[in-house]
């Protein structure tokens, strides 16, 4: 009974890359500390369109003296994000969260390998920051593979530049960093990492994660992926956000991305059905 919807006030909503916006929202200071990989459900206050709240990963979180600030990175892909992009400073939004299970933080792995494609950079750069601040010691290291279509759509660099990590940038067209899909580049590097001393974290479009699953199949690498699915409630009640997992005896079985995820171990997911 402690949880509630928070009314937030937008104090920044800027296009930081092509069709990609950074939204900063001020919230009451009772908003709970989010874990990397957790998300919020966001709606515009007072209007009925878009009707459902939209899920967004938390990109940054900051406690100020008498409020807290949450940053979201979002791409304009449809009606809801289009309307969001039009919101001006001072507009009010309703925020539910933090929701879902964030990434399991490995305290022991020496290699923390992060792979982000497109908007996957939002939760993963939050994770990288967290790992860098709270976990990494001399013995564990962060490797950040960041992919995008081209240099214009690449996001997350500003955060990465402030971290102690090895960043590998890839673009589909080679306009920045290596040319190629982030999964291809990772596949080439994979032998560098000892599976039992490595934790892989990934987020990105479905085809990328599917490819990653293929690459890791048969290996001993542990990998956590953050998934996306259309959502209504965000809290596990509507069963709308189903993802197929490997069921018993080949039977279909579904988990809820919002409440059982959004982070899953990659081998739990029935990739063939996706």
């Amino acid at each position, binding site marked *: *009974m*402690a*949880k*509630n*919807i928070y009314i937030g006030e937008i104090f920044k909503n800027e296009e930081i890359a092509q069709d990609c916006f950074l939204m900063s929202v001020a919230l009451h200071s009772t908003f709970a500390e989010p874990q990397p990989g957790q998300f919020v459900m966001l*709606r515009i206050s007072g209007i*009925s*369109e*878009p*009707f*459902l*709240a939209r899920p967004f990963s938390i990109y940054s979180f900051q406690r100020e003296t008498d409020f807290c600030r949450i940053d979201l990175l979002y791409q304009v892909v449809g009606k*809801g994000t289009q309307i969001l992009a039009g919101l001006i400073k001072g507009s009010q939004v*309703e925020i*539910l969260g933090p929701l879902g299970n964030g990434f399991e933080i490995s305290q022991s792995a020496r290699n923390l390998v992060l792979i982000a494609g497109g908007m996957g950079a939002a939760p993963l750069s939050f994770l990288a920051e967290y790992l860098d601040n709270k976990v990494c010691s001399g013995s564990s290291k962060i490797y950040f593979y960041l992919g995008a279509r081209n240099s214009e759509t690449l996001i997350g660099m500003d955060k990465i530049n402030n971290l102690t990590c090895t960043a590998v940038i890839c673009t589909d067209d080679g306009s920045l960093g290596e040319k190629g899909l982030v999964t291809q580049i990772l596949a080439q590097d994979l032998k560098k990492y000892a599976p039992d001393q490595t934790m892989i974290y990934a987020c990105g479009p479905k085809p990328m994660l599917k490819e990653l699953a293929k690459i890791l199949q048969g290996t001993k690498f542990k990998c956590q992926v953050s998934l996306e*699915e*259309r*959502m*209504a*409630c*965000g*809290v*596990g*009640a*509507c*069963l*709308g*956000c*189903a*993802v*197929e997992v490997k*069921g018993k005896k080949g*039977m*279909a*079985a*579904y988990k809820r991305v919002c*409440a059982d995820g959004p982070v899953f171990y990659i081998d739990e997911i029935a990739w063939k*059905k996706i």
Partner: protein
Amino acid sequence: MSGKNNINMSVKIEKLKLKNPVMTASGTFGYGEEYADYVDLNKLGAVVVKGLSLKPRAGNPPPRIMETTGGMLNAVGLQNIGVEAFIAEKLPFLRKFDTKIIANIYGESYDEYKKIARKLDAAKGVHALEINISCPNVQKGGLSFGADPKTAAAVTRKVKDATDLPVIVKLTPNVTDITAIAIAVEKAGADAISLINTITGMSVDIFTRKPHLKNITGGLSGPAIKPVALRMVWQVLQKVSIPVIGIGGIMNAEDALEFLILGAKAVQIGTANFINPQATMDVIAGIEKFMQMSNVANINKIIGTFKP
């Protein structure tokens, strides 16, 4: 709620006494626990849980939901853990609250309905059954039980025979004449009627040329369907004398009051929970405020005050 300012919001659905007329709608409130962090379940008139089948069901492949103007489509496919797991794993939690627990059930045959009803009748802590008759009747070529007065009545009778609990029959709006179904289930012994379930709809992705839902069609819910729900509740109220529970597109207290004024004894809040997890609490508070404003101390003095 009741007591404060002498406002009395309690209503009776036959044997079932509710502290207020606000329930959750099946499938939109999980098994109660999903919203327990947001809502004081003790304050609810009743919790109606996600539809239970005899065996666990995996449900439909995704995508399962899509937004529409003023509503949403869902094709969850009645995914649920099955009646036995419900009794073992979910009911103990729900029993702790001072509210009524209503189990929504559905089967693909008369026999399944009967068996589920028996199991719930034997379990402690269920106060009523709500039968979902919108689902396909496998024995009858897949047409829904609720689409025909005869099959609707037959399901009602089977369930009534299998339990002493009050039986609420939940009607599907996808019919030509809702009153024929309502009259049939009343005659078959239903203690109350709830309506409406979702209206079948679909939507198309013009870029991929595919349906937005993997299942192609789904159930439309939300404020878009409220006018249809109100109409059907009104039609049914003129034809039956058992209590009617209004459902469909209720987002706030004003919406709930429309149904109550028509004569619904209670309402269920569905899709609104997704938009605002505290929708039920806001509706209860809003009805109370309306009663204060209108100088009415007893909710039963609001119910049925429609002047057509």
